[in-house]
C-alpha cells in the first residue's frame, strides 16, 4: 500500500514539505493557536506553508425573486495542510455553498478565499483540489478506468502514465477487479468509490467533499468512512467534508465546524482530539470519548454553550 502514497507536489523549498508533515502530526495540539496566525502573509517564500484553505470575512448572498438570501455571513475559516475538517449544520446553513465557493463554483459577494495561498481561480486552474459530490456523477458511457482517468486525460497526461495512475487509484479504493466495468454495473457505494478515486487522480493536496456518502446505506456508509480516513491519511491531503451526520463528522475529522442558518454562519468549532494517527475503526465508534464529542457537536448545533476549549472565538 505504501507505493500508492503520492509524493506531495513539488512546491519549492524543502522546508515546506517538512512543515507539512509536522503540522499533520501536531494536528490536534496547537489548532486553536494556529488559527489565530491569520496575519502571516500566506505566500511568503520561506515562511510556514500557506494554509490549505483560508477564508476571510466571507459573505455570500443569492439574489432570488423574493429578494436576497443570506447564504453566508462573515465566515472565517482556516484549514491546515493535511487537516480533516467537517462542515456540519442544518440545511440552509450554507455548508455546501461554502464548499462550492472554495471550489470556485460560486463567486463570493464579499470577503476572500485562498487555497494554498492562491486565489480559488488559480487553485482550480492548477488542480490543487479534487472534488466529490453526493451523486457520484460518473459518465455512464465510460468504464471505471476511463472515469478515473477523465481529469488526467483533460490535462494531457500521457496514456501510459494514465494507466499506471488509474491502477494505483483503483487499488486504493479497492476496485481493481472492476476497472473495465461501466457505472451502471456497480452498486452505489462502488460508484462513490470511483468518484473518490477520480477526485484523487491529480494528487490534490485538498479534497472537497459534499456529502459524498449521503446517498449510501448505513453499513456501506460506515465502511466508506473508514476507507476515506485511510485514504486521506495515505495521501496527506487536507479534506473539507460537508455532512449532516454528527457521528460521521466526529469519526472522520480533526475539527468539526458547526454552522447555523439565516444567515449561514459558523457558530462553533469542535476539536475531536482523535488525532490523525488514531485508527478510525469500530473500536473508535464504541469509545466513550467519541460519544462525548458527538454530544459536544450536538450541543453546539442546538446552540447550547459548549465546554471551554472546544470552541473557537470568531
Amino acid at each position, binding site marked *: 500500500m505504501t507505493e500508492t502514497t503520492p509524493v506531495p507536489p513539488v512546491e519549492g523549498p524543502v522546508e515546506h514539505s517538512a512543515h507539512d508533515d509536522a503540522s499533520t502530526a501536531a494536528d490536534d495540539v496547537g489548532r486553536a493557536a494556529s488559527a489565530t496566525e491569520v496575519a502571516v502573509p500566506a505566500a511568503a517564500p520561506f515562511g510556514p506553508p500557506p494554509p490549505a484553505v483560508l477564508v476571510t470575512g466571507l459573505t455570500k448572498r443569492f439574489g432570488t425573486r423574493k429578494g436576497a438570501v443570506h447564504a453566508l455571513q462573515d465566515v472565517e475559516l482556516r484549514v491546515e495542510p493535511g487537516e480533516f475538517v467537517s462542515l456540519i449544520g442544518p440545511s440552509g446553513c450554507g455548508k455546501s455553498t461554502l464548499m462550492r465557493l472554495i*471550489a*470556485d*463554483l460560486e463567486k463570493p459577494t464579499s470577503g476572500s478565499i485562498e487555497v494554498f495561498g492562491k486565489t480559488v481561480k488559480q487553485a*482550480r*486552474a492548477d*488542480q490543487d*483540489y479534487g*472534488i466529490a*459530490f453526493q*451523486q457520484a*456523477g460518473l*459518465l*455512464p*458511457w465510460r468504464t471505471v478506468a476511463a472515469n478515473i482517468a*477523465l*481529469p488526467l*486525460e*483533460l*490535462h494531457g497526461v500521457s496514456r501510459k502514465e494514465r494507466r499506471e495512475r488509474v491502477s494505483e487509484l483503483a487499488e486504493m479504493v479497492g476496485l481493481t477487479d472492476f476497472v473495465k466495468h*461501466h*457505472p*451502471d454495473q456497480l452498486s452505489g457505494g462502488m460508484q462513490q468509490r470511483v468518484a473518490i478515486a477520480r477526485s484523487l487522480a491529480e494528487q490534490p493536496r485538498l479534497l472537497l467533499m459534499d456529502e459524498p456518502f449521503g446517498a449510501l446505506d448505513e453499513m456501506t456508509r460506515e465502511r466508506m468512512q473508514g476507507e476515506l480516513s485511510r485514504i486521506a491519511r495515505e495521501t496527506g491531503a487536507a479534506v473539507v467534508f460537508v455532512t449532516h451526520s454528527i457521528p460521521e463528522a466526529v469519526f472522520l475529522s480533526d475539527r468539526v465546524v458547526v454552522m447555523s442558518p439565516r444567515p449561514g454562519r459558523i457558530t462553533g468549532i469542535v476539536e475531536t482530539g482523535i488525532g490523525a494517527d488514531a485508527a478510525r475503526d469500530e473500536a473508535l465508534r464504541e469509545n466513550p470519548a467519541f460519544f462525548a464529542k458527538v454530544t459536544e457537536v450536538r450541543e453546539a448545533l442546538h446552540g447550547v454553550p459548549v465546554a471551554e476549549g472546544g470552541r473557537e472565538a470568531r
Partner: protein
Amino acid sequence: MARGVRRVWTALLGLLGLVAVGAIWEGYKAIGPDDGVLIGETRVLPRTTDLAMPHLLDMVRRLGEPVTSAPGAEPLWRAVYDAASTSFGIAAVGWLVGVTVGLLLALLMQRIRLAEYGLLPWIVLSQTVPLIAFAPVVRRWGNQIEIGTWEWPPWLSVALIASYLAFFPVAVGALRGLQSPARIHTELMHTYSAGWWATLRSVRLPAAVPHLLPALRLAAAGAVVGTVVAEVSIVYPDGIGRQLITFAGQASGDPAKAWAPIFGAVALGLVAAVAVSLIGLLLRNYRRGEAL
C-alpha cells in the same frame, strides 16, 4: 438464449403482419363488391376490380416482366431498382447535408443562448413552409449556378430540398441532447478547468447520443420523403418519385405496374431506417445513460 428466442419471435411477428396485410388485401378483393362499399354517395372502401386492386401475385409477376413492350426493354424490377438507388443516393446526400446543418445549428444554439432564442422559433417555423412551394425556386437558383466548368446538377437541388426536411429534427434533437448533461457533470468539468470544446467532446456530445439517434432516424425518413416529393415537383426524371407518377399514369392499361415503384419506395425507406439503426449499434456504448 431467451434473447435469441425473443428476436426470432419479433421477426416472426413482423412477417405475420406482412402476411396479414396481404391476406386482408386479397380477402377484401375476393368478397368485396366490384363497385366498392358505398355509404350514400360516399365510397368508403375501394373498388375491387383488377384495375383498382390488382392481385398481389400479378404485382410480383409484373416485376419480372419488361418495363415496356419495346424490344430489349429491361425488366421492371431493374428499372425500379435503378430509380430507387438513384433516389437513395440523393436522399443520403440530403440526409448528410441536413444532419451537418442541424448539428451546426444545435452547437451554435448551445454555445450562445441568444442564438437559441433568436433561431429556434424560425427553425420551427421553417417546417410550416410546404416543400412544393419552394422546390421550383431552388431549382431555378440552382440552374443559374455555374462555377468555372462546374454546373449545378439537378440532383443537387433535390438533395438540398430533402435536407430541408432532414435538418429540423437534428437541430432540435441535438440541441436537447447537448443541453442534457446533468449539472454535476458540467460543474465537474468546470472544476477541471475544461473549456467549452473539451466539455463538448467529453460530456455534451456523448450525452447527446440518446437524443440524437431518434433525430437521425426522423431525418432519414424526412430525407426520403423530401427526395420523392422534390423529384416530383422539380421534374427530376431519374428517381423513384418521378417513376411513381409516370407509372401511375399508365395504370389504366397496366394496373400492376403502378405498384412496382411503391414497393421500391417502401424498400428505400426500409434501407434508410436500417442504415440509421446501424449507426445506433455503433454508438450503443453511449446509450448506457438510457438505462440509468
